[in-house]
């Protein structure tokens, strides 16, 4: 009896946690825990959706995938915390700012750094930049691998191992559905069950229309259903100008050859030299540096010194609703993030610590890696004392443009 009551309570809690985001999205009519198939979604995807919103799959019982990747914030962070909290007591900081999952997942290429065979072409035209992979450092080539990390990381969902996750899945209200989809004996094979659960998550993330609604005003503009205001038009011009903002070089903003709408990322890696963020407790330790591609989270590129400090370019859709910017969440307003781009080199003391009149520029990287920071692509080419590329009014214009990238269902993150 007690067990039944417990399961009933658990089920009600599940139901609430599952319903909440859909109630907010006005999608409750489509939700069913173990009901009939939802049009367009595979059985795996429907299971994956339940797993995605299930906080009981974490050690704390309070952290679902959706806790950090909030559906009302374009599957980005729900608030302005530089990094989200996880772990058994939800008191351990994550490593990096939470990226939005919207739009990019099915288009993210596996991580690669193509090698150009001709040494002269490498010299003349440049080496191919690394690109792709999931996460800020691109270390996951599949959504399944990324999910395994979050489910098991001690500072995220903090399960002790795959068996721990599967034990929780067996108790989930959708356990019978899990068996129906993956076989009656699936829970007797924990490694298989763990793999299938992650596959289900991937199906949900790739199939569910909520990951790619294309409902922003900019999408309407691209289809000729809306016009841009004067500030927005000025903003897009500043954004695109190759000798100015040059933003579109990494955040393409035009339709694809097939008319598809832009994702605002080329998935390539870049070192911007974002200042160290004291909000991240790990940064209090001298000698600790998050160097992106070359570690410490990623290990397979550890010997590639030229890749230290590089992080993957994020998409900019819904960027105006975020409260946390760049890989370390150093900035909390879009205006500050844009100011950093245009004043990083002209006013370095605004961003980096100084001692004896000397600015410790690019202070979130070891000194010997600071040469990797981009100082050759506009707008990152100016020097101290020069005028910034954009004034405040121009930054406001760019923000006006970026606000057109907000989907209709997305709400600003909490402060």
């Amino acid at each position, binding site marked *: 009896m007690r067990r039944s009551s417990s399961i009933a309570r658990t089920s009600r809690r599940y139901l609430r946690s599952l319903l909440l985001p859909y109630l907010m999205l006005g999608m409750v009519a489509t939700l069913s825990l173990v009901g009939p198939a939802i049009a367009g979604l595979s059985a795996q995807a429907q299971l994956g959706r339940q797993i995605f919103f299930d906080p009981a799959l974490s050690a704390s019982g309070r952290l679902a995938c959706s806790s950090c990747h909030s559906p009302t914030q374009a599957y980005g962070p729900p608030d302005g915390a530089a990094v989200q909290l996880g772990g058994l007591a939800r008191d351990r900081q994550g490593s990096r700012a939470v990226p939005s999952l919207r739009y990019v997942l*099915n288009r993210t290429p596996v991580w690669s750094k*193509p090698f150009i065979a001709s040494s*002269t072409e490498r010299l003349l*035209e440049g080496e*191919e930049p690394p690109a792709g992979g999931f996460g800020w450092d691109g270390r996951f080539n599949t959504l399944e691998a990324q999910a395994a990390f979050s489910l098991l990381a001690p500072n995220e969902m903090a399960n002790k191992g795959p068996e721990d996750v599967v034990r929780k899945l067996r108790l989930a209200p959708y356990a019978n559905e899990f068996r129906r989809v993956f076989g009656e004996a699936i829970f007797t094979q924990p490694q298989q069950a763990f793999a299938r659960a992650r596959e289900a998550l991937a199906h949900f993330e790739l199939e569910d229309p909520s990951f790619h609604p294309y409902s922003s005003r900019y999408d309407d503009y691209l289809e000729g259903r809306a016009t841009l205001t004067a500030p927005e038009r000025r903003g897009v011009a500043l954004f695109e100008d190759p000798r100015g903002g040059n933003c579109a*070089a990494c955040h393409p903003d035009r339709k694809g050859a097939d008319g598809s709408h832009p994702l605002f990322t080329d998935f390539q890696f870049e070192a911007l030299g974002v200042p160290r963020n004291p909000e991240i407790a790990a940064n209090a330790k001298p000698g600790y540096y998050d160097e992106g591609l070359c570690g410490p989270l990623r290990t397979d590129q550890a010997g590639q010194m030229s890749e230290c400090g590089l992080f993957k370019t994020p998409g900019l859709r819904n960027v105006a609703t975020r409260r946390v910017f760049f890989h370390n969440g150093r900035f909390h307003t879009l205006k500050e993030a844009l100011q950093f781009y245009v004043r990083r080199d002209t006013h370095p003391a605004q961003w980096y610590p100084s001692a004896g009149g000397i600015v410790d520029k690019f202070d979130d990287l070891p000194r010997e890696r600071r040469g990797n920071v981009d100082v050759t692509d506009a707008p990152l080419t100016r020097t101290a004392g020069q005028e910034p590329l954009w004034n405040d009014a121009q930054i406001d214009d760019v923000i006006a443009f970026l606000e057109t990238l907000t989907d209709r269902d997305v709400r600003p993150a909490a402060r």
Partner: protein
Amino acid sequence: MLAAVWACTSTLACARTAAEAVTTQAARIRHVFIIVLENKNYADTFETSTQDPYLRQTLVPMGALLTQYYGTGHVSLDNYISLISGQAPTKDTADDCLPGLIGSVGNFNDVAQTGWAAQGQVVATGGCIYSTRVKTLVDQMQQVGLTWRGYMEDMGNDPARERATCGHPPIGVGTDLTNTAEAPSSAVPLGDAYATRHNPFVYFHSIIDAKSCDSQVVNLSHLPADLAQARTTPNLVFITPNLCNDGHDGAGTGAAGTTCANGQPGGLTSSDAFLKTWVPRILASPAYRQDGLLIVTFDESSFVTPSVSRNPTTGQTTVTVTYPGQTCCHQQPGPNLAGVRPSTMTVVNTPSVVTNLVMQDFGGDRIGAVLVSPFIVPGSTSATPYNHYSLLRSLEDIFRIDGHLGFAADDPSTGYILDSIGSDAAIFQHRAH
């Protein structure tokens, strides 16, 4: 009559007539299959590499090896353009139309033509896409009722990146997304390693402005169906593998950090695998068996001479990489290369290292070519010098087109005379009399 018109246009020179141009059994050829690979020098490909056993040990004995075949320039695009049009480079096509290099226009922009020079050469301040007044081999072929198709591997794999037919970037807008190979993703499971700069056809308005471009510049996947019957096989089949299979990307070893975007080894290893897949299909086709010629060559050589020196006072290391840029066949630089070739460019300049790139001359260095045909003497070789202009001339002759384009034409006033491969008695069977 049409041929006479061709012979009198501004980009053509009148010379030897088509009827007398081909003096061997090559005159019977009516279907030509060209596969262009990337960036390998002759010694690597045909003497030392162990990565291309199919090319060296199967195709070479089966056909003819042109040991003195040269590329016409560095880097890629100018070679492809010379091969189908006889045009020497502009400042931009000499550097793959990449923005921010030495070219004046960059990206996928129209050639900024200011006039004409001898042998129908376009004089231009820069740019990449030639006007409709500049003709190509395929324009010539169409005029005499011959058919052609360009088969581009991977083109359109990512339809957001480029169209699956006649794929090229929007003219004058933004970056050419095909400059970098795209690795596989959920949406593009095969990845996309099509490179516009290896597809010569889309650099001519005479081709891309025509609706027929969509039916004539297509993905390689169309080739098997086209090979099924002789009547469905174009007279000219021009094949560009993707960036991995043409050897542009990857070292060919498979070692970590040296692969293509899709994880394949690339280099001659992937090129050889590509040839091993596609060449048997071509050789088995009715069109080839009836009257075919297969040509496998490269765009340019990758041969360089590196040198390293260190300044003991400053500790600065200077690395100098030198391309010989050798030419053959009395190749002319054309009217647009002043200050561009030869040249020395400092591409890296830091307190610790300086890297210089030296282009000693304007050619593409020695690459070699393999020809296979029922009309070729198996295992033969020819040391006659040829280059991409020679190949263009040879194709014009084989297809009995009166008139030659650009530098494929002789210029008796300067003594510029090209050999035509179809008349090379060292490799082709003698004509029956």
